[in-house]
């Protein structure tokens, strides 16, 4: 008898903004071919999660055997009752058989109950273990792993694959166990009673197996095709719904409609086929089972006619044949589930087998508090082999200096700040903090001394307090509030309902962009880093928030070595030195005034934003006015 669980809806995923540096698109889109391991190995590995608790596993198997034997006893006793008592008109004897059947029913109940109950424990424990392992492992992977695929894609893959595995562990395993032992027990019981009839019943099993295998395989293929069709359809649908306003602005509806209809029709055909193949196993199995029943009638009738068996035996075999259809149709139903779980777990295991990213050297020392001198010495770097992003970057930053990073899009600004925290390892050259190579110290302690304020604030859907405390978990409430004050965030937080206990929505959507930034500044302030890394958000027209942000950032940077991808004039001018980058090379480095005086690359870059001609015209007009 079938068990179904409702499908799981998938949550809408927040896409992450693409990185500033252009990363080769094809590389992003195509993950490497998985190392081929056979389905059977994957299956065994999946099942090994389930059988970690030997004791419970043994009880489950034992209970499954008990259940199957008790179940097989029911038709046997039924036949016995007819043969020995009804045919012989022995009512008292019949009560004994009835009692035995009731007892067998009870035993079957207990057996199946114990089995399913413990299996529920084992299955959910296995799911827990798998999710935990996966999450823990993902934490160790380097950013190169994340660069290979959009986060949204990774997320939905993990969620869907885990759900497929869950379906199998929660429902499939139980059916397989139950069905396997049931078939074995029924077979044993049948042979014990009459080998001729047993053969008549079992003749159909190969037929059922063939149909199941064929339909299962065909349905599997059809579902894969359907998934592809639906993937294409839904992909097109999602982008045109997401961009519906653009579609309408360009009167593109008819064209989009045509393409959508074509894709939908392709999906319809796949849908039809997959569902048809999915549906037909059940009636086919029952049909074959009924042919088996006809065989029982024929052989049993002939045997009874020849007085080799009694009528009750035939009756018992009618029951056996009927009962055999349950496990058979169960197995045919579970077959697809197994295929999907194997596909899902192969992908999950692929992630689990991914080599952890950047590793410390063995016995690398911890990095204590540092003064904050940072050296780049001939640094070459590329995200993707063959596409170099930084060329021979060499510069020195003294402790406490604020460094502005400037340059056109794609010049390598974000890359430089990614390297200081050792998010990526460089190809050649060296990066040193306080004259110590960052590749010789424990990377976690390096990151403990650096603080990052990203351009797009990362907010967790927890309280404001939680979000600030993320900077230093051991911080007291008081310290968090102090950090919020440094970040100019205290005033607005006080005004939130519940103040610091105000719970933020996903992505901080119940705060303004500026407020989200203030919170991430407070977080960085709390962590009190020696080296601060800042990817400024572009300034906005909202001058009030702008002032708060500028102040907060300047306070935070005071006395720390800071690297800033600068968009704000105030930041740029206050910087001790500006590193002007172009095409991955350091073009110029020096204080703002000095670089301006130099009238080189930086001067031009800086001048660009003024729309020079227009301003000259304006200044000329003012000068004219000034003259009497």
């Amino acid at each position, binding site marked *: 008898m079938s068990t179904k669980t409702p499908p799981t809806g998938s949550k809408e995923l927040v896409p992450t903004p693409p990185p500033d540096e252009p990363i080769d698109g094809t590389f992003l889109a195509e993950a490497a071919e998985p190392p081929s391991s056979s389905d059977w190995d994957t299956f065994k590995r999946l099942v090994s999660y389930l059988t970690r608790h030997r004791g419970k596993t043994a009880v489950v198997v034992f209970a499954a055997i008990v259940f199957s034997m008790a179940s097989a006893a029911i038709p046997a006793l039924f036949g016995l009752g007819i043969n020995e008592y009804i045919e012989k008109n022995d009512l008292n004897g019949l009560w004994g058989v009835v009692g035995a059947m009731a007892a067998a029913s009870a035993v079957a109940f207990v057996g199946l109950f114990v089995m399913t109950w413990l299996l529920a424990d084992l299955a959910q424990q296995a799911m827990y273990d798998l999710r935990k392992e996966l999450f823990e492992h993902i934490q160790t992977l380097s950013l190169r792993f994340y660069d290979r695929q959009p986060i949204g894609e990774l997320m939905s893959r993990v969620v869907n694959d885990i759900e497929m595995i869950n379906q199998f562990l929660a429902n499939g395993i139980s059916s397989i166990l139950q069905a396997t032992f049931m078939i074995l027990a029924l077979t044993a019981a049948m042979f014990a009673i009459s080998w001729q009839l047993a053969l008549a019943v079992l003749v159909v099993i190969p037929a059922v197996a063939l149909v199941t295998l064929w339909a299962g395989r065909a349905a599997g293929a059809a579902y894969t095709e359907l998934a592809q069709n639906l993937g294409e359809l839904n992909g097109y649908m999602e982008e045109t*719904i997401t961009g519906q306003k653009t579609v309408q602005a360009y009167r593109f509806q008819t064209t989009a409609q045509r393409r959508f209809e074509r894709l939908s029709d392709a999906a319809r055909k796949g849908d039809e086929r997959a569902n048809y193949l999915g549906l037909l196993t059940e009636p086919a199995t029952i*049909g074959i089972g009924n042919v088996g029943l*006809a065989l029982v009638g024929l052989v049993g009738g002939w045997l009874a006619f020849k007085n080799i068996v009694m009528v009750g035996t035939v009756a018992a075999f009618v029951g056996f044949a009927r009962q055999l259809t349950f496990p058979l149709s169960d197995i045919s139903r579970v077959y697809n589930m197994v295929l999907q779980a194997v596909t899902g777990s192969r992908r999950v295991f692929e992630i689990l087998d991914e080599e952890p990213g950047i590793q410390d050297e063995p016995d690398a020392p911890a990095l204590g508090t540092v003064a904050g001198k940072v050296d780049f010495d001939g640094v070459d770097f590329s995200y993707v082999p063959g596409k170099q992003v930084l060329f021979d970057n060499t510069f020195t930053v003294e402790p406490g200096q604020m460094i502005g990073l400037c340059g056109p899009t794609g010049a390598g600004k974000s890359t430089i700040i990614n390297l200081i925290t050792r998010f990526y390892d460089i190809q050649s050259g060296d990066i040193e903090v306080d004259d110590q190579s960052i590749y010789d110290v424990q990377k976690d302690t390096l990151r403990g001394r650096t603080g990052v304020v990203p351009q797009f604030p990362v907010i967790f859907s927890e309280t404001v307090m939680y979000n600030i405390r993320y900077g230093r*978990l051991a911080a007291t409430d008081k310290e968090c509030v102090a950090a919020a004050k440094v970040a100019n965030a205290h005033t607005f937080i006080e005004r939130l309902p519940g103040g610091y206990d105000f719970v933020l929505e996903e992505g901080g959507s119940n705060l303004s962009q500026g407020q989200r930034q203030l919170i991430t500044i407070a977080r960085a302030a709390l962590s009190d880093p020696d080296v601060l890394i800042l990817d400024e958000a572009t300034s906005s027209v909202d001058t009030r928030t702008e002032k708060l942000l500028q102040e907060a950032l300047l306070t935070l940077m005071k006395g720390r070595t800071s690297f800033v991808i600068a968009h704000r004039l105030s930041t740029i001018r206050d910087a001790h030195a500006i590193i002007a980058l172009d095409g991955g090379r350091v073009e110029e480095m020096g204080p703002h005034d000095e670089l301006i005086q130099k009238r080189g690359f930086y001067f031009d870059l800086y001048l660009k934003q*003024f729309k020079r001609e227009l301003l000259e015209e304006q200044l000329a007009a003012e000068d004219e006015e000034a003259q009497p």
Partner: protein
Amino acid sequence: MTGIFRFLKLSLTIPGAKKALVISQLLMVAYAFFLLAVPWLIRILIDEGIQEGDADVILGTSAIMAAFAVAGAVVAVAGAYYSARMGARFAHEIRVALYERIGRLSFGNLDRFNTSDLIVRLTSDTNIFKQTIIYASFYLIRGPVIIVAAIFAVFVTSPGLVWVMIATLLVTVIVMFVYARYAGPMFTDVQLRLDTVNQVLQENLSGVRTVKAFVREEHETERYDAGNDTLRLTARRPLRLLAVLQPSIFVVYFLGMTAALAVGGYLAIERGTVSVGEITVFGAYLATAMIQLVNVAWLLPELAKAEASINRIFEVYDTEAEVGEAPDSRPLPEIRGRVAFENVTFGYRDADGQTGEPVLRNINLVAEPGEMVAILGATGSGKTTLINLIPRSYDVGEGRVTIDGVDVREVQIDELRSHIGYALQQAILFSGSVIDNIRMGRPETTYDEAEAIARVADAHGFVSRLHDTYDDRVAREGANFSGGQRQRLSIARALAPRPKILILDDSTSAVDVATETRIQAGLLDVAKDTTMFIVAQRISTVLVADKIVVLRDGEIAAEGSHVELIESSDLYREIYESQLGTLDEARDLFAMAAERPSEERPEGVS
């Protein structure tokens, strides 16, 4: 079930649907007949064949049984085909009809439904409905038929056992009902916990840089672990309930068999009213009926879900577009491009059609043909709202918007929009090729034209470096292009129809100032006769405009050219200085630039 019935009524107009529906159900009834005929034949075989020792009956009945078994399977397989076909066809029709309807909604409707909601209705709601239709067509209608027929068959053959049958089925119903009653909320709980766990994962993945920067991997693992463990415990509960249900169903069947033997045996021995064959087939009838019952019981909650889904689908389907075509709307073949806002007030409508707080108040603004009008203001000041009134993305509340003196509401919508090139704030590209995207507003755009336009939008540079240049692949939502590249292609797309009115909503926010300057220079060069609206947050974007409109809280706070505003508007000067510094500094810079010998001046920063 009103939604489902309404759909079925509508579906009868779909070609072939009625036929598929009728055929599938006829096949199912035929299947029911064959399914129930088999036990009937067993009884004959036992009672009249074996018990009477009649070899002919044994042989003949077995043959008929085999034939019926095959016939039943064939009929059911055909039924499966029609059910699957019908479901798939319905899903297709729903998708297409819904998609078409969404194309006719206006921005206001789209805001209220929001994207993910619409997508859910087109995907999972449609899917739930389809799957239920397929299962219902295959299991639901035949279920009661078979159950009633099975009871009837038992009643006819062995009236003494009919009560055993009815009692067993009743107990099954009760067991299923209790299960459904408790399992439903449990599954909702599991879903909730699963969402929580997935949200932690989602935040962890999208905030991976922050997690790593603060070395919070362990902390994240603990946070995940807490949710993970709760999920484990929650997900175990419905499974444990199932651990009670499953054996219960089996035991009910087994006890039914036991009762059949007891009651049947008693009646056979004491009264002789029941035959051995009848006792035997009782089990077969019981099993058949119980399987159907369990199937129907599984389906009923699914039906409730399908009803909810089809109603959500109808909700979109029944929505009237907020901006409609006027009955006597007129064409607008050629325009000069004078755009005027006359005393415009506007507020967004809520779900009940009520107009909310005005986000624009008393806007009076004229853009002369060929003028570049920049709109500057903080987030939420009403910039995007203002320009959306021109192509009738929304309709004004009070006042009117005119083009060449004609109220936009009197013009055919498609005609109106054919004159307007509009690069929306969210620069979305669509899967296909680069040229497909540029051509969206004017399919006949040639490669040469596309290239010329792309040069203006400063997109030709990176497009020409692509492997297949203008034929290169664009991934879904343009994911293989950076934000700045998407914006530049979106500007090119707006230029392709050679519009008289061009609207760029914050379309250069992701490109650097040098690039923006080049684009603006290009625009001023090729689109001299085009009236341009440029929405911006960055002051350098608006400097070159003929007219700058500063919006604050839905009202025009200042208006004029840069030269005028820097004198007259404190607000404007404040914004300017906060972003670019004081004018004196600029003066010094230019003085220095002038002094510089020209040969030292490096070429642009591209």
